[in-house]
């Protein structure tokens, strides 16, 4: 089974703050790491490989330093690594990102299953996986919490939805996004670290991709534009209501109503 796992390097913490005066992000001592949700995707791939054999390719997109997460994937057991890295990919939104990854996956060769994590911890959109499946023209299933079976033509999985669990057989090639805790991710292995230290990471630039029209990538290929960023309003301040009981009851009613705790369907 040829499995491709999409991974991303993200800031080591989401505890980033914006300086309210300057509008600048405070980044002191922020290190990078593999997006934690991708560890579950990678572990799922490793389990599939253990059971059915095959090869695991990891693909990432980012600046040259993002090679670090591909090295980490090697230490967990991934076989091949590709990094999409080019100034022309910069400023990519969901559409341009998923399109660039789809081109990278095409360049990396044939695949049976693509596995993505639930979301990233920086962008938080949880939308790249589904857009990637569309760009590749393959079916996708999200929220996968269990893998049952795989054969040469299909993968059988369970999807965890709010009210139901759905077991579905998906024709290959396909894309799945996996839930946190589908499997406990293994730790990187020292042995594998030594064994893969010299392994090549293929860096893919625009010139390596099937579609070389720069208008489809990066900022050019991004329909959305970030107009501005700003810190959220702090809602943690404490209030004391010392008024007469009738007044407090009324305020509490309005609070519950405003915050939609009273919503009932008519």
């Amino acid at each position: 089974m040829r499995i491709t796992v999409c991974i991303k390097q993200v800031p080591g913490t989401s505890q980033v703050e914006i300086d309210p005066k300057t509008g600048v992000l405070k980044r002191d001592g922020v290190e990078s790491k593999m997006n934690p949700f991708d560890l579950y995707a990678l572990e799922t791939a490793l389990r599939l490989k253990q059971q059915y054999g095959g090869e695991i390719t990891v693909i990432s997109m980012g600046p040259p330093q993002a090679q670090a997460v591909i090295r980490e994937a090697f230490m967990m057991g991934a076989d091949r690594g590709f990094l999409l890295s080019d100034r022309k990919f910069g400023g990519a939104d969901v559409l341009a990102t998923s399109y660039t990854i789809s081109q990278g996956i095409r360049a990396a060769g044939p695949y049976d299953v693509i596995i993505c994590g639930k979301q990233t911890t920086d962008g938080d959109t949880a939308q790249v996986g589904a857009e990637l499946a569309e760009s590749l023209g393959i079916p996708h299933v999200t929220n996968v919490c269990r893998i049952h079976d795989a054969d040469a033509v299909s993968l059988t999985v369970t999807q965890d939805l709010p009210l139901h669990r759905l077991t579905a057989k998906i024709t290959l090639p396909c894309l799945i996004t996996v839930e946190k805790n589908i499997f406990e991710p293994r730790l990187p292995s020292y042995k594998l670290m030594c064994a893969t230290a010299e392994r090549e990471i293929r860096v893919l630039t625009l010139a390596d991709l099937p579609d070389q029209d720069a208008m489809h990538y990066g900022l050019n290929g991004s329909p959305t534009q970030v107009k501005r960023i700003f810190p959220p309003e702090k809602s943690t301040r404490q209030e004391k209501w010392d008024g007469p009981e009738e007044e407090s009851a009324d305020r509490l009613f309005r609070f519950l109503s405003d915050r939609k705790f009273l919503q009932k369907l008519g």
Partner: protein
Amino acid sequence: MPHIIIHQEKAADPQQLIGLCPFGAIETVDGRLSITSGCRMCRNCIKRGNGVFELVEEPVAMVDKSAWNGIAVIAEVEEGAIHPVTFELLGKARELASKIGYKVYALLIGTGVTPLAGRLAEYGAETIHVYDQEAFRYFRIEPYTAAAEDFIRKVRPGSVLVGGTPAGRSLAPRLAARFRTGLTADCTSLDISASTDLDQIRPAYGGNIMAHINTPRHRPQFATVRYKIFSIPPRNDAPAAEIVHAKLPEEKLRSGIEILHTETKERMRGIEDAEVIVAAGRGIKKPEDLAMLQELADLLDGRLASTRALVEAGWTDARCQIGLSGRTVKPKLIITCGVSGAIQFVAGMNGSEKIIAINSDPDAPIFNIAHIGIRGDLYKIVPDLITRIKQSRTED
């Protein structure tokens, strides 16, 4: 296309300039500043870089926005009923549409869903397109995308709002990629400008940063919004709406996904899973009075819990005890009634999103951690509150 050029000669303090970028995308290579692929075009460096960074915009191909009109809501059906997030989106769509003279459309996809179309009209949809076919029994991505694509090509809406449910978060990106247009996920605020551009605000970095996002050159504009972000609008009993029945041909309904088995999850009834909790403490004078708090919990679709003292007195069940020797809870809302707030109790609930404490003792430690501390007699406040809630429901 806008891009940033760097005037190296003006760069007096490269380190300070590097610090301007919230995404760490400015670096120095051989003493020269450069922008890496991490750039998100937030333009912070342009605003604050004292002229070192300049935005260059060239004229770009722009979609004819006047050819894309109206706001469409993709309805979601769950257990044979319209998911309430759909009504919330219809309310917002109505509000935005009336600002710029747009119409509100709804798309309803499913099996046996035709009778539900009227519900969408009651909450503000003027034209409802219904795709009611056997292939839509389960949410499978290809047939649902095909139906929504068919609808969008016919109606050509300027904006499409989709619920941030698992199905919506699967369908919206698929459609956005198909139409090669913008999608903004999990918006917490939506507005519309005279140019018909949606002003979308969404959190990033786990909610530590808010981003204001536009889709200025493409149509339609896709946005997903989670449940309970917007309010359900008042229901209209006698709406006038047009219902359009559509069918997809067999070849558009093919799917590589076959549903083998479905299992309904057990309703989680533990207090750990409750979104709203009413917690009773020693301020409750006798066991019969718990009925009043149970009633409040029911009205809020929540669960009644208690402190250890009430469990030990035999008034409440051990399974609903909050605290170190009980359960840890993290609901969206907890209302503590007559709870003093001993550390053992607080340890089991201080991760709650909103803590409201009602207690007559102004020095009760619970007030140290409550977001809203109400000093007063719970025997007056709770019945008053219950009456207000019931009144508001009969008014509807």
